[in-house]
């Protein structure tokens, strides 16, 4: 499904990721953890072909990302659903238009769109918000819209980049339930997160990256970083990634 073979990406002299070899199978639910600047974002950007690797090969959904031309990039991105920490909804479109947009770019008929959009909104529990604009919704509701948009075309892979980063613990957990539900229906999920309690509670596969390298890959793993006192104090200091004032 997603396969990295000996992939290296550097930004000048800074290492993004280095010699990473990893494979994520269909139906997996994977947490990608690690301190800020460890290479998590580079990992995601490489999958989406937002940046190109210096070395190695990347396969996503049977496409060799390395060999895709710029014109073929949209095709790759359509086979992947994406959810971001900051939702990235189109501000000038209503909830249902935001979700419909993902179908419109595939030139799906408006009849199918009119049929599918309410179903997905219902699944996400936001049917009543269909006519609202993103700024009229709570953060949790906006993330539900983003997830609805990400899954409406039945992607084989859903990438979630800190989807709970802007949410309070209860709402975050609701979103996790939603993602779990999507995963159970066969969608592979790759989620970047800093939320220790969520990772520990879900008990899924955890891939930890540090300084551009995979340092741990556990099935049924835990977040693990709190075991390291030095990392804990580093991450939780004011301005650190766990500082509650930052997120």
């Amino acid at each position, binding site marked *: 499904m997603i396969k990295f073979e000996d992939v290296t990406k550097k930004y000048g002299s800074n290492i993004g990721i280095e010699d990473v070899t990893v494979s994520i199978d269909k139906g997996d639910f994977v947490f990608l953890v690690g301190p800020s600047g460890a290479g998590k974002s580079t990992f995601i950007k490489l999958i989406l072909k937002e940046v190109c690797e210096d070395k190695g090969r990347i396969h996503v959904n049977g496409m060799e990302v390395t060999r895709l031309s*710029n*014109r073929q990039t949209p095709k790759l*991105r359509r086979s992947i659903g994406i959810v971001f920490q900051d939702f990235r909804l*189109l501000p000038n479109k209503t909830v249902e238009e935001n979700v419909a947009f993902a179908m419109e770019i595939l030139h799906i008929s408006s009849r199918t769109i009119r049929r599918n959009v309410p179903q997905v909104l219902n699944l996400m529990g936001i049917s009543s918000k269909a006519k609202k604009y993103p700024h009229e919704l709570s953060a949790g509701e906006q993330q539900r819209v983003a997830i609805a948009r990400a899954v409406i075309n039945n992607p084989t892979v859903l990438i979630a980049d800190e989807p709970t980063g802007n949410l309070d613990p209860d709402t975050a957990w609701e979103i996790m339930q939603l993602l779990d539900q999507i995963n159970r229906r066969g969608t592979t999920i790759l989620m970047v997160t800093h939320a220790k309690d969520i990772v520990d509670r879900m008990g899924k596969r955890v891939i930890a990256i540090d300084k551009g390298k995979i340092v741990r890959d556990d099935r049924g793993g835990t977040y693990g970083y709190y075991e390291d006192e030095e990392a804990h104090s580093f991450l939780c200091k004011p301005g650190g990634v766990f500082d509650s004032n930052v997120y």
Partner: protein
Amino acid sequence: MFIRGIGHAIKQAFIQIFRNRAMSFASLFSITAMLLILGLFFILIVNVNMVTESAKKQFDTIQIYLLDQTDQVAATQMVHDLSDLEGVAKAWYLSKEDAMKEYKTKWGDKGYLLDGFTENPLPNSIRVQVSDLSLADSVVEVAKKFEGIEDIKYYQTAVDKLLSVTNYIRTGALVIILSLVVVSVVVVANTIKLTVLARAREINIMKYVGANNWFIRGPFLVEGMLIGFLSAAVSVGLVSLIYSKVMELFGTDMFLMFSVTMVPERFLIVNLIMIFMALGISIGAFGSIISMRRFLDT
């Protein structure tokens, strides 16, 4: 699929224009302003052209003054010979009495002053109207060889001056119009760039969701063209309004003072509509394509 894409682009363009009213209005306003200035220059140039053309006509007559001893028969022969020359539209004999009448009409109210002459000082003359000013010299050369001629007058220097002035006006006008077109494309591209910049994030999101470049560009392109079309309509309306007011105020004065008519409104407006529609729509289209380029490179 292609048709559906176009349908989507048109629908989205209308929605975008409405939802981004302020920005749409800003673009509309700047294109309209440019076209308005352009239109006024266009009108000025067309009219200057018309004035010079008709003024030129007034200088296309050669006057050949005859000695008093030259009789009517010889004069008639000259008229006949001149009429056969290339470049001559018309040649006719004007007696000294007719010339006096002509003066009196020209002087109008003051015509009675000419009654003071006891003897008519004007000579008999032949007038030659040339169809092509560049051939006037050769006509004069032929006329000089006639017997019984006192003098030949034609406004060669005046005509030469007029021709060069006309040329200057034409080139000057062309330069001004061209630079105005360039300026308006730049201004419009910048205005649209602002609207695109305001939506850079939106475009980025569209790319993440997997939209290809034409799918993103389509609505913006249609939007640009629509705004260009509307601006053209508004500015044609304004220009024709201004022109009809000017005609009302100065049209008759112009005729009386320079015996020149202004270009008729209808003719001008029909041309303006065609030119402005083409210009407005392409300015809008090019503006949006140019200003989006940066955001679609990857």
